[in-house]
């Protein structure tokens, strides 16, 4: 997976499988401090120590299931090789937070990729989850933010599904506009 946005999708999928009901995805481009920071936080069932170890280290195999995010060790490696790292906080029964940091300008940094499509994919296919997406850019000219909490959207829609063509168009437009409003043209 050669896009941070794909890793975010993968991590968020894990959050859904872990029973997360409130899942938040944050992307922070801190150009002032030359950092790119992404995270996914859920209120799912969390992991015990054993599982957490296995998630971080592909060679730590007790291999009971195959399901536990094979993607995470790769993201960890990618983050570490571009001057950052990955951290995992988890508590059984409480939830999990996975955060990856990269040096923004690092030559080996994975491109952020299509964050909007990751958001739309999650929003549409897991309507029972309350999604919060937050995209923030901290640049020379100040701080810009795009925050999307789908609660209001869903209550405004009532029983009309998110995949109705006009609703889909609206959502896509909103996400695209939101991201465009915070990202300078230069962002990869």
């Amino acid at each position: 997976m050669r896009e941070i946005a794909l890793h975010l999708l993968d991590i968020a999928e894990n959050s859904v499988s872990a029973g997360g009901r409130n899942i938040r995805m944050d992307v922070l481009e801190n150009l002032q401090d030359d950092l790119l920071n992404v995270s996914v936080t859920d209120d799912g069932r969390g992991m015990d120590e054993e599982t957490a170890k296995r998630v971080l280290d592909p060679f730590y195999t007790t291999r009971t299931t195959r399901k536990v995010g094979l993607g995470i060790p790769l993201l960890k490696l990618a983050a570490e090789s571009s001057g950052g790292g990955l951290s995992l906080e988890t508590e059984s029964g409480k939830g999990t937070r996975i955060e990856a940091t990269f040096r923004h300008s690092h030559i080996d940094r994975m491109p952020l990729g299509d964050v909007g499509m990751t958001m739309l994919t999650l929003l549409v296919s897991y309507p029972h989850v309350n999604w919060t997406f937050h995209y923030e850019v901290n640049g020379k000219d100040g701080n810009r933010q795009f925050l999307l909490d789908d609660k209001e959207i869903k209550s405004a829609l009532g029983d009309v599904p998110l995949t109705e063509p006009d609703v889909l168009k609206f959502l896509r437009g909103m996400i695209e506009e939101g991201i465009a409003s915070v990202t300078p043209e230069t962002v990869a």
Partner: protein
Amino acid sequence: MPAIKSLEELKRVREEALAKKQLKATPGHIQVIVAMGTCGIAAGARDTMKSVLNFIETEHLSGVTVTQTGCMGMCEQEPIMQVVIGDQPKVVYGKVNAEVASQIMKQHVQNGSPVKDYVLPL
């Protein structure tokens, strides 16, 4: 934040969607399911999804639900997509890239005949 304005707009979208639905009788409920385990994502499942959503939007295809599922245990066939129409048995497709996805949307979801070349024998 243009939140308020957007919500007004969304309510209008809702009214319109409801009105249109009453005009068109949907031919049984249609479900499209894209597998999004790590393998699926790595194989391009998000592009598959993108193609499905684009099709719905551009063709104004009403009454289709799109969901995801995790690992299907058939890595080499990813991206995997399933189509369920009404109470017909589900059809499982393998190696569904963006192009194949829109072909399935057109031929199967819209016109009711499965795209045989990509159906997985189960």
